[in-house]
Structure formats: structure tokens, C-alpha cells
């Protein structure tokens, strides 16, 4: 894969998209890897008892997966200098079918002085945007 060149970048340029399938297995794997064992992320009874529509994906899993669109585009996970999201809607993960998270990115701003580009990410589940102000600043 050829890596993007800073001088060729344009604001508004699409950088790609990824469809992630988040299953209950994904949630258990993320719980173990991150140490976040809040049981609303793997137990239906606990999720129901606190009034949730079902077991939810960790917000940090959604955040961590979404940025892979920018990582794959630039080709190096170490070049994400700044990354922020707002958690606006939950991702409900069905026990057998999971949840499909569709993430796409485009260039929102370019800073020639610092040689960085801001990638604006859109993350959708069930045609609803689940992350707000999802921005990754990429170093060149």
C-alpha cells in the first residue's frame, strides 16, 4: 500500500472506510485486553437491571476500532498525535448477530506548519452516528 504524501493532501478528501463486526467475543476480548470488566459489556441480566436496551460495546472499543481507518491510511499507528471522541450513542451488541460498526474518514484540516492533517471520522451503527467530534490528528 502506498503511503499518502503530505503535499498531496486536500481538505475533504476521503481516506477510506472499514466495516467492523463487533460480537460478544469482541467485547470479552476487549475487556481482557483493557482491564475494563464492567459487566454491562458481557451480561444481559446486568445490562437489563440498569435499564439498558442490551449489552453495550465498550465506548473505548468503538473509539479504538474507529481510529484504525486513520491508522491504515497513514500506515503507522505511531503517527496519531492527538485523538478525541465524544460518546453520543451506545452500540448494542446482539448475542448472536453482534453489531456492525461502519467507520469512514475524510480530511478535515491540514496544518502546513506542524505538518499534520486532521482526519474526521464518522462512526455509525444501525444508521445512527455513535461518536461525535471524532478527530484524529496525523503527523507527517
Amino acid at each position, binding site marked *: 500500500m502506498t503511503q499518502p504524501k503530505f503535499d498531496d493532501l486536500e481538505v475533504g478528501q476521503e481516506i477510506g472506510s472499514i466495516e467492523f463486526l463487533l460480537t460478544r467475543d469482541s467485547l470479552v476480548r476487549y475487556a481482557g485486553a483493557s482491564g475494563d470488566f464492567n459487566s454491562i459489556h458481557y451480561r444481559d441480566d446486568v445490562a437489563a437491571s440498569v435499564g439498558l436496551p442490551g449489552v453495550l460495546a465498550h465506548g473505548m472499543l468503538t473509539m479504538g*476500532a474507529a481510529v484504525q481507518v486513520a491508522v491504515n491510511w497513514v500506515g503507522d499507528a505511531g503517527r496519531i498525535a492527538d*485523538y*478525541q471522541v465524544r460518546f453520543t450513542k451506545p452500540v448494542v451488541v446482539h448475542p448472536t448477530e453482534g453489531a456492525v460498526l461502519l467507520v469512514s474518514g475524510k480530511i478535515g484540516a491540514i496544518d502546513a506548519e506542524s505538518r499534520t492533517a486532521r482526519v474526521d471520522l464518522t462512526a455509525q451503527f444501525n444508521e445512527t452516528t455513535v461518536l461525535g467530534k471524532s478527530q484524529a490528528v496525523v503527523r507527517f
Partner: protein
Amino acid sequence: MSQTIGVVNVNVQGKKYPATSPYLVGREKIREFAHAVKSNSPTNLDVFAAQAAGYTDVVAPPTFAVVIQERSLATVLADPEADIDFSRVVHGDQRFIHARPIVAGDELTSQLEVASVKTLGAHSMVTFETKIYDINQELVCTAISTLVVRGDE
């Protein structure tokens, strides 16, 4: 629950918590975390690819700093003075500002400060700023996290 105020003690605004003990970032931990966030980035997974890109070892995914942040956050949630009811906490937003990427072999400590406590109707919003340092006390990452603590409706 009859208590309608005091889901968070506003007096903890500005409070700094002691630095955590060093966390040694392992190569396999980075790979495990990378798989968990569905990364297939070579610099996360492959030592040779990471070294070819100029790093000493595999780099952590951009959100790995949450693992370090959590260690500091745990001390706050256990602090009786802060008085945060964990069962009412929802993650509002999150940001990681990296001075440099986290690399396998790093020994990291974190220092958390309660940046702000705001009340919004029955809810409280608490923003934590966690500075993550390497063994030379150089800043690696600033993690900013806002938790929303739901009050009684």
C-alpha cells in the same frame, strides 16, 4: 436513593492524586490490545516493521493509554472524598494527546488531576486530566476523560 445532590464532591476540583507505580508496557500486551481494537497495523504487531519505521519496538495503538489512565482513575473512584458513585458513571468523552507513541519496554507512571467538576441539572460532569510519563519523567501522553455521573431524575 433520596440524595439529589452530591453525586460528586465539587471540592475535589483541582485535586491531584499521587503518581501510580510504574507500568511496564509489554510487547505481547500491545499485540493483545491491538487485536482487541481490531488493528492490523504492522507497527503495532511486527517488531521489524516498527523498527523499520524508526521505533525501538512495537508501538501501542493510539488508545492504549486508557490502560494507564484507568490505573489513576481507579484511585479516584476509590477516594471517599471524591464520592463518585461508579454505578452511575457514563463515559462522556475521551482524548489522548501524544507527545510520542507508547512503545513496548516503556515504564509509565501517571498523575491525575481533577480538571473540572460541572453540574448540569441533576447530572455532574467530571473531567480528569492524566499525564503519563516515562522513566525519564518525560511526558508521553496527556489523557483527558470526561465522566458523566447521573443524578436522580
